[in-house]
């Protein structure tokens, strides 16, 4: 279980998170939606300790992330897969090496690494691309490799940062299907940061809207679709006013 507890974070005096509280239960996928620049990605980075909170904390499996030392963080991160907005593939490594890097860190043997890389690439329909360099791939393929890199670790949690941003509708649908498939096949808990409502409705068990640094509303897809909160309504309907 992941729990944001009254999380506060400011950058250069600008308050981004102002008391974010949200609990994500095991085996569910929660989509965090909200306007650009409201701190969705910032919230996600707190889960893996990439950012340190000014106040409050994130509790993962009963451990307060901000209190963990480097060894504690390493152990925590071994159970979490992170899919970055622009995939963040290592451009000096091949696709297969990108996937193998995290597995090697976990001390797996070369045979098992090869097997897991093959499996993960097959799951994202990219079998046969292992020897290609990231620069040779399209945007959608890079995102799928990013997902494969997370899946290969067989994590308990997968965090997706804007997985469909910048993709055409068809590729977005492919990524959405992939996220659903990942949850169904591997039973992992997912946190998806997005402002793509079609994606949120497809992959989310629950949707939480982040507004002015805290959660404005959280509920099931149906609850969010039927909301009477004017701020949430305006956002999900994509109205200018």
């Amino acid at each position, binding site marked *: 279980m992941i729990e944001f507890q009254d999380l506060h974070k400011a950058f250069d005096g600008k308050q981004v998170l102002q008391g974010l509280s949200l609990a994500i239960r095991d085996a569910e996928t929660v989509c965090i939606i909200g306007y650009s620049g409201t701190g969705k990605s910032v919230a996600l980075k707190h889960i893996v300790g990439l950012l340190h909170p000014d106040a409050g904390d994130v509790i993962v499996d009963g451990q307060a992330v901000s209190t963990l030392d480097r060894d504690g963080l390493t152990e925590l*991160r*071994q159970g979490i897969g992170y899919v970055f907005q622009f995939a963040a593939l*290592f451009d000096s490594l091949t696709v297969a090496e990108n996937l193998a890097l995290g597995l090697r860190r976990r001390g797996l043997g070369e045979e098992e690494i090869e097997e897991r890389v093959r499996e993960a690439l097959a799951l994202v329909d990219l079998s046969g691309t292992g020897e290609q360099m990231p620069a040779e791939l399209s945007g959608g393929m890079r995102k799928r490799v990013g997902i494969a890199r997370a899946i290969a670790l067989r994590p308990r949690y997968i965090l997706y940062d804007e997985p469909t941003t910048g993709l055409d509708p068809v590729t977005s649908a492919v990524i959405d299907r992939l996220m659903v498939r990942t949850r169904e096949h591997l039973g992992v808990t997912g946190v998806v940061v997005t402002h793509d409502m079609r994606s949120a409705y497809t992959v989310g068990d629950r949707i939480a809207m982040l507004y002015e640094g805290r959660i404005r509303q959280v509920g099931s897809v149906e609850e969010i679709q039927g909301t009477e909160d004017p701020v949430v309504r305006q956002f999900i309907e994509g109205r200018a006013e």
Partner: protein
Amino acid sequence: MIQAIGRHAVSSVEAVGRVGHFLSDMLRALPDVRTWARPTIVQMRRVGVDSLPVALFIAAFTGVVLALQASYTFTGAVPLYFVGTLVGKTMMLELGPVLAGLALAGRVGASMAAELGTMKVTEQVDALETLAYDPQSYLVLPRVLAGTLMFPVIVAFAIATGIVTGWLTSLALLNLSTPDFIKGLKLFYQFKDIWFGLLKSASFGFTITLIGCIVGLSTRGGAEGVGRSTTHAVVYSAILILVLDAFWAVVLL
């Protein structure tokens, strides 16, 4: 005015603090041999083998110029075999390490700052951390170790090249015989000449790669930030090479 001086002083102290913090993080990563051993070999090849042509090219022409300038200065007043002394001493003590250091600050320091800066702004460094790697072990230590170990090797080749081209120039253009050149070369030679130059070059290698890593990993703001980091890495490295050069001269000579 006073405010500006104060701000500058505070930011300088902060910068020193950041370097200290960075160094302590790097030392803490040392026991993680399993992570840094393999990338260190890769970096040693990149820093060493790939930088060698530039360093040798500079050293070759420096040797030629040193021999000719020595002969021009000595004419009539000092025996010509002192050309060997001047070429040998100058290459070993000063020009070999410093010119190679300045050239490699541009080549190695800039490329490390650009590479790590790009990794930083494209979230590859964050990705590395989420895969449970310590960037200090995987990115910084291999580069700094490679720089510290390979710079003396490069400089040793550069010194040898400079002396050889100085000797060939003396033979071809100054009518100086090989025995005379060697006589001059041996005249005031001390073993310290060698280790002093190599120690200096190790400290240059350490500094250039450390600055490249620090500046690269603190890059912010996309392509423009990467460009800024690259320039900063070269400028800071060049300044520190000259400061270190003076420091070693004061301390060891």
